[in-house]
């Protein structure tokens, strides 16, 4: 199949529609608006539903409604909009509805600006809204993965009855690359819990309210068991040059692309550097990081945040890691990361601010 040059923000819509998406509800925000533009064009021209909601709060509740009716639903936004969706995301989790949310991260806090950052990590990976719930979080690092992850996300969302996040950043949204678009269309099977406005589904109830502590306790426990299953079944990552590495980079999204370039550069300089990039941020490849932690001398987490993922890497590695943090929209060049790494490789200790 021929490859096409497609922007990440457009590829995600291609993947979604071929993955069986039926509904897109969203509210514009840079740098995610292009997804809404592409969805407005392609959902409508293919006979699916696109609707610009009045705000993100209602957008996520439209997802809630269409998901209740068995639809394959999605939205796309960025930090401020995802924050507004928090209550709805918690309701989706409570009612165990499948949904797909793309977060093209921008720089914060507050209005911040439209530049790339990866500072929604805690909000998205840890849950964001109220209650004991999780989202499955996929971390694309190319336009191809924007397409592929969207293509898979709906099936995953339905399998576990969870929200699947595609956690991208402004650069992964903007990048144009060769993308191989899937050639088979997925469809949502009829779900025994959903509402189809017919006799068979009439007794179904979508709710997140439970009326005594015993029931709510068991509901919570059931959710935790489901999340444990997700952790067993779904964790994905990719490694570059780790076999003999003694300096390990951990990074996702655009930071992983940068780190990959840095690893190549270090290898050229005969330094044993490697990269692990999580493809799923929840579940997190903790076990593999723990393993590599025993092998490597140092671990550096490259992130466009104040070290939000680094905290999870430290937890997995059971040691402090080097934190190469950039914030406020600043994105490092290969050279900048290279200099930090070269400097740290000279040190014997592994701790750095």
């Amino acid at each position, binding site marked *: *199949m021929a*490859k*096409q*040059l497609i922007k990440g923000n457009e590829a995600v819509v291609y993947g979604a529609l*071929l993955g069986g998406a039926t*509904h897109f*509800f969203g509210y514009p925000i840079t740098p995610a608006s292009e997804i809404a533009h592409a969805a407005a064009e*392609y959902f*409508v*021209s*293919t*006979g699916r*539903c696109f*609707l610009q*909601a*009045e705000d993100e*709060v*209602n957008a996520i*509740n*439209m997802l*809630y*409604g*269409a998901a*209740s*009716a068995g*639809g394959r*639903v999605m939205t796309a936004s960025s930090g401020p909009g995802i924050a507004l969706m928090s209550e*709805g995301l918690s309701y989706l989790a409570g*009612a165990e509805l499948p949904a797909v949310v793309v977060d093209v991260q921008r720089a914060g806090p507050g209005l911040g600006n*439209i530049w*790339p950052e990866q500072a929604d990590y805690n909000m998205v990976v840890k849950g964001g809204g109220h209650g004991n719930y999780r989202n499955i979080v996929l971390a694309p690092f190319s336009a191809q993965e924007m397409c592929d992850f969207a293509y898979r996300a709906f099936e995953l969302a339905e399998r576990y009855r969870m929200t699947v996040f595609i956690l991208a950043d*402004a*650069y992964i949204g*903007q*990048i*144009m690359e*060769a993308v191989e678009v899937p*050639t*088979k269309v997925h469809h949502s099977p009829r779900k025994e819990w959903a*509402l189809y*406005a*017919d006799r068979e*589904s*009439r007794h*179904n*109830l*979508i*709710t*997140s*309210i439970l009326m005594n502590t015993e029931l709510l306790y068991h509901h919570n426990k059931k959710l935790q068991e489901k999340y444990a299953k997700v952790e067993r079944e779904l964790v994905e990552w990719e490694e570059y040059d780790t076999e003999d590495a003694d300096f390990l980079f951990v990074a996702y999204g655009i930071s992983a*692309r940068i780190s*990959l*370039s*840095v690893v190549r550069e270090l290898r050229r300089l005969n330094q044993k550097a490697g990269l692990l990039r999580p493809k799923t941020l929840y579940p997190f490849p903790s076990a593999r990081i723990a393993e590599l932690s025993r092998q490597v001398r140092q671990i550096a987490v490259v992130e466009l945040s104040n070290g939000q993922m680094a905290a999870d890497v430290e937890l997995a590695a059971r040691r402090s890691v080097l934190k190469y943090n950039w914030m406020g*929209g*600043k*994105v490092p*060049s*290969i*050279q900048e990361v290279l200099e930090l790494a070269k400097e740290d490789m000279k040190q014997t200790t592994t701790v750095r601010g």
Partner: protein
Amino acid sequence: MVKHAKPKTFYDTFERRGPGEKNTTYCPGCGHGNAHKLIAEVIAELGIQDRVIFCSPVGCSVFAYYYFDTGNVQCSHGRAPAVATGLSRARDNAIVISYQGDGDLAGIGMGAIMHAANRGEHMAVFFINNAIYGMTGGQMAPTTLIGQKTTTTPFGRSPGREGFPIRMCELINELQAPVYIERVSLGDAARIMRAKRAVKQALLNQVNKKGFSFVELLSPCPINWKMTPIEARKWLIDTMEPLFPVKVFRNIEEPPVKYEPPKVLSDAELVNHFAATTEIEIPVSPREVEDQYIKIAGFGGQGVMSAGVFLANCAIKEGFNATWLPSYGPEMRGGTANASVIISNNQIGTPLVSSPNVLIAMNAPSLDTFEETVVSSGLVIVNSSLVSRKLRREDVRAIYAPVTEIAKDVGLIAAASVVALTLYACISGAVQIETIKKVIPLSLKKKALVDVNLKAVEAAVEYYQKNIKEAYSYTSVK
């Protein structure tokens, strides 16, 4: 009509509430009970029980699903109209009900209801106005009357502090899309009969796909009004009705928008929709090319962004890996637009080009901005039509070519970036001229534009052969 028996739309026993449960959660004299019963009866009469999806709000009626033997969705506070929007847009055959209190609909959910109404969503909204937050302990609602004492207006609602009661039917009546708006009262038996006709009209409108229908029911809350059920009904009639006039605000025969289901593409059509555009014969000649880190920069109208896309397109058509990234955020400076393009035989790491080995500078500010970033022995193509100065660096290879003039000569100044790309292709050999010629018709829709751009390519090749070839022939191809 069944008068005192339980309508068959209600469950016989409320198992969702508890095993064998027969009682409702509503206080004696509460309007919710009346409203539920009317809706249940009408659903039975219209024979639409299987098709109904009932959205219950957060409020005293959060448990509507205990009673209604229909599809049920429990919504977050104020968002039932958004949830109902999702439902009705997912199920053409559904009869969607959004049942909401005054805090839910006119307070936290004001945005949701106004926009659902304005879009003319296919739903029947039953709005229970009891001038109070019932569930949470009798706080002020947007509909609370002036002087009315609530737990958050212990001295009575004061317009200077809390504003005036909001009249929802009147507000919604300002919008174009709704087909039916009526306010009814649950104050006495006659009024309840009238209310039932309204409920029926709203649901019939859904059966007939007419559109957004809104029924406000003035409804007693004896508990929080601190009255007996009889006093409450009297207060409702004497005090609430004058402020909230009971009447039909709108009942349109012909809906302003006709419902039309979308034409859904088949799988084959869908795949086709996203398949690569018509294939072109490009001999994929897998050659070893030194990684090309290209920065192409110019002012807004020079088409440097699309030139970058075009170049990346040529590269992937030849079987290379390629990335394109626009100037974005921190890179946007000095009035120049620029794109980063990388062409490589290998998987590409960062798509950001901060140290290019190729700079195509279409105007002076671009050269000023990026000259220093070019790696030693890199290639710099300068548009000498617009840049009068020479490079300050001596460790890079500079080509000065009047690309704007060359483009002007073929009749299209906007083709300047194509001229520059063609020169770059000639010099570097990273992409082939044949490829450029084949990709141009794929990238441009207008035949006339294709022709001029092809001419620009020819002119650039000619310029290259006459003026550049000697010095820089395919220098970077290994």
